[in-house]
């Protein structure tokens, strides 16, 4: 029930429609339940000669012209049967329309909410997220919830109201027969419920096994080059086989349980019908009920069987729905980045101060400590250091992807934490080391932040990023699709695309997070030269392992184990013994050869 409470807020705005849907199905069930009464009355009093005891039936028959007329024109009863069904059908139509209206709107809102929530979750969440699992939650779990709302919830209302109507009709016909007719119904319900309890875990296990199978397949396909190069085809097949078989085995187990459930519940249901036939026959012979009443009871019990069987199925699906609700709520309960916080929105010039900045991801291990430096507007700052020294973390602090744990960062004298996140991000172009391209054309990717940008700006950005010629070599040039559904670009091409995308908006601060690592040195230089022309425009941070990339910087910061071990210009640093000079020596030790040549 706790789950349903969680679901309640989603129903907002559509509760009335839901209530209407339930109302319409209730009314349609009423007409359904009337059917057997029409039949039994017709059999007993029109064909037979029993007196009509039911007041309402009496009134209707009199309105239709009395028993005698009906006996002469039997087709009138046929028309009544069809009319009754037609009324039931009209309400069924409204129920279908209304519940779709409500559930589709709700699932649309849920999808939008999830989509937005996910993109607003903090950076740290996305660093370690499991894509496959998250996608499953956003798609199949939402689908399960929708089915639950759109079909099952209303269906349950329909089944319950039908049960009530039938019970009421049966009681009005004959109490004793009602008891015989309902004898096994609680057993069938109980059985369904017990089964539902049991099956929930099996469903979950099967789903998990399916997800595992997909992951194995996906990893195999994305890593197919490695698989082939290592000749690991048979190893991969073994892995796949084991996942494939365990998935099958779990589904089989599920099927076995379902087979037991359906056969037993069918047995119970049919047994119930048998009880009615035998007991009813006795009663008719003993003249305690009429033959029409027996027919009505047989009809009713048959009408009950389906919803009772169906209930088992709905309940199992409800089991899935409760799991899905949990899985979706789990995402929504993770707090998002406070993007709208009414922070300041100052004009950004690009002067930056770090003062004793410290940062830790988990509150235990310090990733950055005592980081202090000053950057003038328009300067280029290069950051070097070994793997894991904190370079990426440092630059991620600027667009507030992470907030520093201690110390102070000031932009143009303003404390960074007081500046609106969106605002600062709009003023910083950060090119990631492994950038993501969206499934759209190259042109749309480059002007992704501002689709209104002129083609000319797109071309210019592409030229600066030295990707223009590559693009022209594609068949469809700037209209070439990239990303999931398009051509696969090389690592270097992706990085250059990302650079073009970043610089098109001419932000006052630009950060390259080792984003030239996959570009050859000639192209690297070409890009740097083009960027230098913009030097006075933007304050630029460059993370790189290449001396040649960083040597032009106004200041080079060398990081090691989260602290600044050296800083200064290329010339200054070469005069100091230290990490920078060591790196330089390694890279330039070859200069000898050149001199000799």
């Amino acid at each position: 029930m706790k789950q349903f409470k969680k679901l309640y807020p989603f129903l907002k705005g559509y509760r009335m429609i839901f209530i209407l849907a339930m109302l319409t199905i209730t009314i349609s069930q009423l007409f359904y339940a009337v059917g057997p009464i029409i039949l039994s009355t017709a059999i007993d009093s029109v064909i037979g000669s029993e007196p009509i005891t039911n007041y309402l039936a009496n009134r209707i028959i009199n309105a239709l012209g009395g028993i005698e007329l009906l006996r002469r024109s039997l087709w009138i009863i046929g028309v009544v049967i069809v009319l009754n069904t037609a009324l039931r059908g009209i309400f069924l139509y409204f129920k279908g329309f209304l519940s779709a209206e409500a559930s589709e709107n709700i699932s649309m809102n849920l999808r939008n909410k999830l989509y937005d929530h996910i993109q607003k979750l903090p950076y740290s969440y996305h660093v370690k997220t499991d894509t496959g699992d998250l996608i499953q939650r956003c798609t199949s779990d939402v689908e399960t919830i929708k089915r639950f709302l759109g079909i099952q919830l209303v269906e349950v209302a329909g089944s319950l109201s039908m049960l009530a109507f039938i019970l009421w009709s049966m009681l009005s016909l004959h109490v004793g027969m009602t008891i015989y007719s309902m004898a096994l119904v609680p057993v069938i319900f109980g059985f369904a419920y017990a089964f539902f309890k049991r099956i929930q875990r099996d469903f979950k296990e099967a789903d998990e096994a399916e997800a595992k199978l997909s992951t194995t397949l996906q990893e195999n396909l994305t890593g197919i080059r490695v698989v082939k190069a290592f000749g690991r085809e048979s190893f991969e097949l073994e892995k796949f086989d084991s996942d494939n078989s365990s998935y099958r085995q779990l589904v089989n187990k599920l099927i076995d349980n379902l087979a037991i459930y359906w056969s037993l519940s069918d047995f119970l249901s049919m047994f119930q019908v048998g009880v009615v036939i035998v007991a009813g026959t006795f009663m008719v012979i003993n003249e305690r009920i009429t033959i029409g009443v027996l027919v009505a009871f047989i009809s009713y019990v048959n009408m009950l069987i389906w919803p009772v069987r169906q209930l088992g199925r709905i309940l199992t699906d409800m089991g899935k729905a409760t799991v899905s609700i949990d899985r979706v709520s789990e995402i929504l309960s993770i707090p998002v980045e406070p993007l709208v916080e009414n922070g300041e929105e100052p004009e950004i010039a690009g002067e930056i101060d770090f003062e004793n900045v410290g940062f830790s991801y988990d509150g235990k291990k310090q990733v950055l400590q005592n980081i202090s430096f000053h950057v003038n507007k328009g300067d280029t700052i290069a950051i070097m250091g070994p793997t894991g020294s904190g370079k990426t973390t440092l630059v991620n602090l600027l667009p507030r992807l992470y907030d520093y744990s201690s110390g102070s960062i000031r932009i143009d004298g303003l404390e960074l934490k007081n500046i609106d996140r969106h605002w600062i991000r709009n003023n910083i172009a950060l090119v990631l080391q492994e950038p993501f391209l969206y499934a759209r054309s190259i042109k749309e990717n480059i002007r992704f932040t501002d689709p209104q940008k002129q083609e000319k700006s797109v071309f210019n950005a592409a030229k600066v990023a030295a990707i223009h010629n590559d693009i022209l070599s594609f068949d469809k040039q700037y209209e070439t699709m990239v990303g999931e559904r398009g051509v696969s670009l090389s690592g270097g091409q992706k990085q250059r695309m990302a650079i073009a995308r970043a610089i098109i908006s001419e932000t006052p601060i630009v950060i390259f997070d080792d984003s030239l690592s996959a570009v050859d040195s000639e192209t690297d230089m070409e890009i740097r030269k083009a960027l230098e022309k913009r030097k006075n425009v933007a304050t630029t941070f460059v993370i790189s392992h290449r001396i040649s990339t960083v040597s032009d910087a106004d200041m080079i910061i060398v990081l090691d184990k989260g602290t600044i071990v050296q800083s200064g210009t290329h010339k200054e640093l070469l005069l100091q013994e230290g990490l920078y000079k060591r790196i330089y020596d390694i890279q330039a030790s070859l200069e000898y050869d050149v001199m000799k040549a």
Partner: protein
Amino acid sequence: MDETNFNTTKKLSLGVWRDFYTYLKPYKKRFIKLIVMMVLLGIIDASFPMLAKYAIDEFVRNGSMDGLPLFIGAYLSAVISLSLLIFLFIRMAGRLETTMAHDIRRLGFIRLQELPLSYYDNKAVGWLMARMTSDVTRLSETISWGIVDLAWGLAIMTGISVYMIILNPVLALITLSVVPALAVLSVVFQKKILGAQRKIRKINSQITGAFNEDIQGAKTTKTLVREDKNLFEFSHLTGSMKNQSIKAAIISSIYLPLVIGLGSVGTALAFSYGSGYIMEGIITYGTLVAFISYTAQFFEPIRQMAVIFAEFQSAQASAERVFSLLKETPEIRDEGYVLETFGNIFDQKKELLPPIKGTIDFENVSFSYQPQEPVLKNFNLSVKPGETVALVGETGSGKSTIVNLFCRFYEPTSGRILVDGTDYRKMPIQWIHNNLGYVLQSPHLFSGSIVDNIRYGRLDATQDEIEEACRIVNAHDFIIDLENGYNTQVGEGGSLLSTGQKQLISFARAIIRNPSLFVLDEATSSIDTETEKIIQNAITKVLTGRTSFVIAHRLSTIRSADRILVIRKGEITEDGTHKELLDKKGYYYRLYTNQYLDEEGINEI
């Protein structure tokens, strides 16, 4: 994820299903058993109203309970056999479905492993995934349960018709007169419903794709501050999803009332005529009751048949896609006699494969990815065993192609490549791969622990050997610094590690193979210089005695090669050692000086 997914053939095509017959053969017996069961089940289902009729006519009319025990016995045995059949058929059809899905998926996976890399060049992973998952599921589901429903539906409809005709042929004809209308209506509507569902599925796959971008691109989206626009675009998708779904729901909501309405016309006819017949004494009460039950029972099988008809159409599209994958013939594959001698890639007789010493000869090799656009033309190259060859050149110059051909990811369009004097096409593909250490620029790791990933290189490697390999590439220190050391999980695709760390691990993975051939494809681009320096020594050590190809942007990695080839437009323009090429003052010299002498500081030291 996949738009071609929905180009469904309009009509049922026998060709596809005939094709499928070959794949169905192993299950033939089970299909026959299932069909027999369902026919029996249909007959029993159709018999229940007859039992009720019997009770009414025999006991009620005669007012005596003679023969009641017999009746109860007959009823009970019908119920028991019904339940038993239900139990058996669900089990059997379910198992048939899972087994078929399992087997087809396995065949598909095997095929995917056999297909060469060129097959993957223009296929998105999502596209292949859809074939292996949802298409296979839909296919096996529709086949197994479709057959079940079809057999049951036909049996029960035949059973009902026969019983009705036995009871009273005239009344049977009158009652059954609504059936053609019912059938036409069902087919028309089920087609419409399916068409609407197809549209929904298409939008649905777009939504899945959008969620995929939402998640994988989240970091980039953040830096680009694109959240609002993204949501705006996404809400268009979900909006049209809603509209289509409601449309589909309306079609179904019209169908159901129409069908039950028509069904009630059948009931009305049965009653109007039947009650007249009773008064005239032509039929009994029991017969009338049976007819009324039958009119209600007839609707479900007709609806189901219409559903199956529609579903088979969409399953056919799935079938076409799955079979096109299964029937794909690998461009690069072992010839018949190679297979006979050495076994296939899943069952290789490794002991028969001679060890590779490492002489490599490219003889007049030409190659093009696309016809008309040759990347290599009459390319010749001889590499001595143990030689380290560095390839230098611009993007698109053909250096990756040379490596791809060497690894036999691709095969020459013309000419041949000799390994130790043997045309490698005369040997199994895995001959090269078993002797190859390969490190990629974007290192792909598999989810699992670090140790699992390194062991991928050699499955029987011991912990000591693994640690040794990690020490060589300087990865040991950072690994033991991690919370769980070597047992640290690397995440999906290695996402929990940095690119540099991934490169080091993929390096260790290659080294542990102790291969005689080695390929470094931009392997050190994301490793910091100090580490690279340390690895460089290791690389030099490791490459010694192994025939290796090295592609690198960093000249520091290249200069220690025994031989450097400058590749331009598919041709070797310079060939020699580092020193020789510098002396030549050609492309290499310019490249080299660009990278290292562009620094003002150098001359001042």
